[in-house]
């Protein structure tokens, strides 16, 4: 089983690597770059929200910080367009992570709704700073990034694609490591019952903060790649309130608290969104909003946990078949009773 999983992972990775070579149309690769950026950001967000249960809706702030950090680095150090700015991406992520330390420390003092709203408030503070600290951010005029003039035509998107893919793989690896480590177990305990977790010896404060900072780091790196790709940053575009909810929705769609869920959700949703934006600017919001509603109402669990649940049920049915006692089948959880036999999301994936 383990070998099958690893093989499947390698196949998916290989497909991801050859994708831009097969589909070299710039329109397609353009959408792919955005999809990877969002999948990575959702993966980062999930490390905090999915594992600890602290739903932060202010991560657009760290996305924007990463974006502005790389723009300011490139400007101050006179970096030319090309491959060099990609090496600044981890540094930009680090800036976001450093800012996340005090902000996370403050925000994580409160729980549930208050936490949600305080993260939104912090996001608005960061956005207002981007507007008002004109010496650093140039205010509403925004900053421009160096443009790689050597790359042209169909090739232009390719370096961005691989950069985003690398960060996504790193993010997924971190997510997997967190998930399978003792630290991650502590985070899951916090999600289930924070007071009890503390009683059992989990260092809840520092664990939560670590998860917060790790997620800000990943989101910040994606923000940096995004900024370099779109070539300019403005307070309204880099600090975008829709981003907060977009990554939350992607994670919920794929399955919050799982490793593959946010990636799947990010790829699916961002692709649809980009497609609708291109297809129809007028109806885009209406269509996107309605789609959003339908997904949330029909699949509140998320795709991966739903599949997992169905698969487990199927396997359990199969395992019982040789005995073919109807009683055994009837005793299994049926569709009518998922609320009673509720499984914690993402225990296995």
């Amino acid at each position: 089983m383990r070998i099958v999983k690893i093989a499947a992972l390698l196949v998916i990775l290989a497909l991801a690597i050859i994708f831009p070579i097969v589909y070299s149309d710039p329109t397609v690769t353009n959408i792919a770059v955005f999809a990877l950026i969002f999948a990575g950001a959702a993966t980062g967000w999930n490390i905090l929200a999915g594992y600890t249960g602290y739903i932060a809706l202010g991560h657009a702030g760290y996305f924007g910080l990463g974006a502005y950090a790389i723009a300011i680095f490139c400007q101050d150090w006179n970096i030319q367009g090309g491959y060099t700015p990609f090496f600044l991406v981890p540094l930009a992520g680090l800036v976001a992570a450093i800012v996340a330390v005090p902000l996370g420390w403050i925000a994580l003092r409160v729980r549930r709704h208050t936490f949600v709203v305080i993260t939104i408030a912090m996001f608005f503070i960061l956005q207002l700073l981007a507007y008002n600290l004109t010496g650093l951010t140039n205010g509403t005029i925004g900053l421009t990034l160096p443009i790689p003039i050597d790359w042209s035509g169909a090739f232009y998107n390719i370096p961005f694609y691989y950069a985003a893919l690398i960060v996504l793989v790193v993010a997924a690896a971190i997510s997997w490591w967190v998930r399978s480590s003792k630290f991650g177990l502590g985070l899951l305990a916090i999600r289930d019952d924070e007071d009890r977790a503390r009683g059992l010896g989990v260092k809840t404060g520092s664990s939560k903060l670590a998860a917060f900072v790790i997620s800000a780091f990943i989101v910040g790196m994606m923000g940096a790649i995004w900024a370099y790709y779109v070539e300019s940053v403005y307070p309204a575009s880099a600090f975008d309130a829709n981003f907060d909810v977009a990554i939350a929705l992607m994670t919920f769609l794929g399955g919050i608290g799982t490793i593959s869920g946010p990636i799947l959700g990010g790829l699916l949703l961002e692709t649809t969104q980009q497609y609708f934006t291109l297809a129809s600017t007028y109806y885009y919001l209406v269509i996107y909003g309605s789609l959003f509603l339908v997904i949330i109402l029909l699949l509140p669990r998320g795709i991966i946990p739903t599949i997992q649940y169905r698969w487990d049920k199927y396997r359990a049915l199969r395992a019982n078949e040789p005995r073919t006692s109807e009683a055994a089948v009837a005793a299994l959880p049926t569709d009518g009773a998922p609320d009673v036999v509720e499984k914690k999301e993402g225990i296995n994936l």
Partner: protein
Amino acid sequence: MFTLIIEAIITGILTGGVYALMASGLTLVFGVMDIINVAQGALVILGAYLSYVLQQNFHIDLFLGLVITMPVMFAFGVGIELAFIRPIKRDRTMISLLVMFGLALVIEGVLNLVFSADNVKLQAWYITGSFQVGGFYLAYIYVFGFLLAAVLLAGLYWLLYRTKFGFSVRASMQNRVAAELIGIDVERVSAITFGVGIALAAAGGMAYGATNAFNAGSAYDLISRLLAIIIFGGMGSLSGALIASVGMLVIEDITSVVWSPVWASTVFFVLLVIILVLRPRGLFGQVEGRKQ
């Protein structure tokens, strides 16, 4: 300088009343249903556009138009509750947040389609006309808007503290399960509360549209302020929402006079964060029980 500060305080209090109207709907819905209605901003703007349509196409006075818009928005709110909130069975708090956000996007999209993204402002004699108090001029609309807010909030107070329905609402706020056990139809109470919250948003929207130019995108600015207000006052607390609304607007107005308008909201948000560090439940919030 001194008169400027006095002026800032007076306009802050008057506009604060209008924000209290919108925030009270939000905090009420949170208290009863435990959900954050992030569509409140979009609904306020929808209310403002309804008043605009009534005035432009039917020449109905803005305040008189509320007799039509508020019941319409009430029905709309009940409809939203029945169609989108009630079917949510698990993880209500988070899912409802996302659902309401989706709804806000749809409302924003529809408003953009119907009215375009151009800013509009409501027109009436009391919006342009002003009178002199002390050393400065004040538009009538600020006073009228404040009076409207005072009347509606007094009505809300009466509804909550003097009627049988109000007892049911407060019982549901204190303990949902216990309220159900003593025979309160919590689902029905939730639907009506949601409707009331959105009817208040419609009234607030009219007053907002009369004092600010708006378009569908104004919803983002509004919802961030409203969320900050109800957190500041303590979630689920009506008096907290009132004090926080007035406090926020006064702080913003004073900051814009003594420092600079661009820092007005930053100062408020920073203050909010400081308050939350010192007192995580907000000014008047209840201590949250331990969730099992």
